[in-house]
Every structure is written in C-alpha cells, then in structure tokens.
C-alpha cells in the first residue's frame, strides 16, 4: 500500500477533542501527548504522566473499571503504545464500555530525536486493536474524519480505538506539573472528594 503522509496538527487535534471532554477522565501518555493535553488547558481530571512508558492504556483500563459511569480517554503516543501492545489484548478481552484509547500517531519517537517508530513502516495499530477485540477501531487522516470520530470518542460503547495520524511538526513545549504525588492527589480529590481521597 502507498505511504500516506500525515497532515494533521497534533495540538489542534488534541485541543479539539478535549474541548468536548465534559466530565471525562483523561489519561495522557508521557511526552508529547502530555504536553498537548496541558496546552489544551489544565484540568484536575487529567493525569499528566512523565514516566511509566507502555502503561498508559492499562492505567486507563484500571480507571475505567473503577469508574464505570465516567468516560475515560487514554490519549497516548505511538511509541508509548508500541511498548505495551499486550494491553490491547487485555483491554479487548475486558471490553470496558467507557474506555477510548486514542493514539496521536506521528510515527516517530518525538522526545528522543525523532527516530521512526514501527508505525512509520506500516505497522497498523488500528488493525491490531480490532483483532484484539475492540468494539470500534479506525484511523483518522483528515479533519473531516476527525469530526466524524468526535462523538465516538465520548459516546460509542467501548472499547474504542482510534489512531490519529499527525505530523512531526514541533509544537511549543507546554509543561504541566511534574510532582507525581501532587498530580495523583489532585486527580483523586477532584474525582472522589477530599476526605474520600485521603481516608
């Protein structure tokens, strides 16, 4: 198949998605997806991540199982997901209806010198998610496709998977807080209330 060069801007894509978040819980993967989510506007129900590469989708699963009435959005990178591909199978078996896994796929390791990831050479994360048992899975290349997908991220019965192809264009660094304990406590206090969070 002929290579299709990504054209979407990651910052714009993530900002557009998060504009509609409502009371959704957002789990960005380390690196650029975390900066993208921070750039879209700080929110206590976003768990910024600075480490734990390969674990983002599984953190989303644990959160989705704990909060079945809330929508959970994992927003991660292609390199991050490739490190935890088994999690697609685990999520595919669990089939949480409230979980969407969104990959902001620039086909490169952006934080380490823009080395190509496997997705640059045709590894198809969407096909893998579908084969693993995700109820809905697709790849987005254009603004029109993104618009079609928007309600699916929030309302389609999950697990939903979407790989959004974005350029490697540099976006200005927007760095959120780094203290993991503070980010965790803020998230739990906002979701559960202060006394429940610190019982």
């Amino acid at each position, binding site marked *: 198949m002929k290579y299709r060069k990504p054209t979407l801007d990651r910052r714009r894509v993530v900002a557009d998605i998060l504009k509609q978040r409502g009371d959704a*819980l957002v*789990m960005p993967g380390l690196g650029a997806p975390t900066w993208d989510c921070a750039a879209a506007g700080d929110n206590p129900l976003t*768990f910024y*991540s*600075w*480490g*734990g*590469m*390969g*674990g*983002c989708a*599984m*953190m*989303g*699963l*644990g*959160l*989705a*199982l*704990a*909060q079945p009435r*809330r929508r959970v959005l994992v927003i991660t990178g292609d390199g991050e997901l490739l490190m*935890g591909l*088994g*999690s697609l*199978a*685990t999520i595919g*078996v*669990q089939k949480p209806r409230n979980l969407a896994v969104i990959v902001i796929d620039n086909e490169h390791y952006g934080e380490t010198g823009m080395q190509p990831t496997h997705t640059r050479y045709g590894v198809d994360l969407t096909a893998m998610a579908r084969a693993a048992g995700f109820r809905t899975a697709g790849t987005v290349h254009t603004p029109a496709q993104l618009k079609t997908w928007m309600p699916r991220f929030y309302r389609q019965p999950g697990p939903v998977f979407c790989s959004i192809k974005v350029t490697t264009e540099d976006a200005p660094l927007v760095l959120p807080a780094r203290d*993991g*304990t503070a*980010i*965790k406590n803020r*998230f*739990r206090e906002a*979701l*559960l209330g202060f006394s*429940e969070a610190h019982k």
Partner: protein
Amino acid sequence: MKAEKKPPAWPLEIYKVLKDAGIKQVAYVPDAGHAQLIKACHADKGIKAVCLTTEEEGVAMLSGAWLGGDRGVLLMQSSGAGNCINMLGMVAECRFPLLMILTMRGHWGEFNPWQVPMSQATVPALTAIGVAVQMVNQPGEAAETVAAAARLAFSTCRMVAVLISQRVVGSKQFK
C-alpha cells in the same frame, strides 16, 4: 500436587483477607500456586479479575484503579517481578499504594534451572526500586502477612510485596 491430596487452605484464607481489605480489582499473570485464589476471584461478582499478558500491565492498571478509587492486588510468580521494575518507578514517584502477592519459583527444591536466576534476583530487585518485601515461609503465616501488607500498602501509600515460599506452594513436579 497429586490429585488425591487435599487443596491447601491458605489460598482461600488470602481471598478472605483481600475481601476484608476492600479489594475490588485483581490483576494477575497465572501461577499454579495462585490457581485457587484466581478461581475464587473470578467467581466473585464484587471483584474484577483481569488476566494480563505481562505483569507490568497490572502495575499500571492498579495505579489507574487507585486514581478511580478502587483498591487492587497484583498476583504473579516471582519471575514476573523483573518485568515490573520500570513501571514500579512510576508507582514509587506517585506514591500509589500497591499490594503484590508473589509465589516463589526457582527457590526451594526447584527442578528447572532457568527459574533460578530471576528467583535469586527477586528480593534485591524489588528492594532496589523501593518495594517493602514480606516473606511467608509457613502456610499458617499467609493470611496474617497479606492482611498486614494490605494495611501497610493502603494506609501509607507504599508498594508492598508478599513473597510466598516454595515451601508453602510446593515445588512443581515434572512427572
């Protein structure tokens, strides 16, 4: 274990302790030593029992569970400890509470030499990343040790591993 032998009591004693501790999510990579406990968790509608492809998935999953207000436990055999190390660094930084129960391989009366290196590295590796390690050497100690470990993990937001000796689990018989 021979077929005519009565199943040991300690796995279901652990199950009861986990229920008392309010555990809602059980993530596991199977081990023969955990088979009874895994079965009991799957049969319990109040527990979400999740089979993993690799142990560090469970470390991440239970961190997400805690963010959402659920307590969990991670079950594995000792060879899985090595798979978890970098993910445990995230847990340490965020002070997520994490309760793990490991059945030992490669340790007491082992037949398979390939199990030995990770077995020998289990305690040093877990300790190096900041996990409090508590040993169970006799079946009668299992329940009280898990209860104490759960209290330590969830009351102080720390990582705690309970290691169940092969003396308790029994060595795998290749015959």
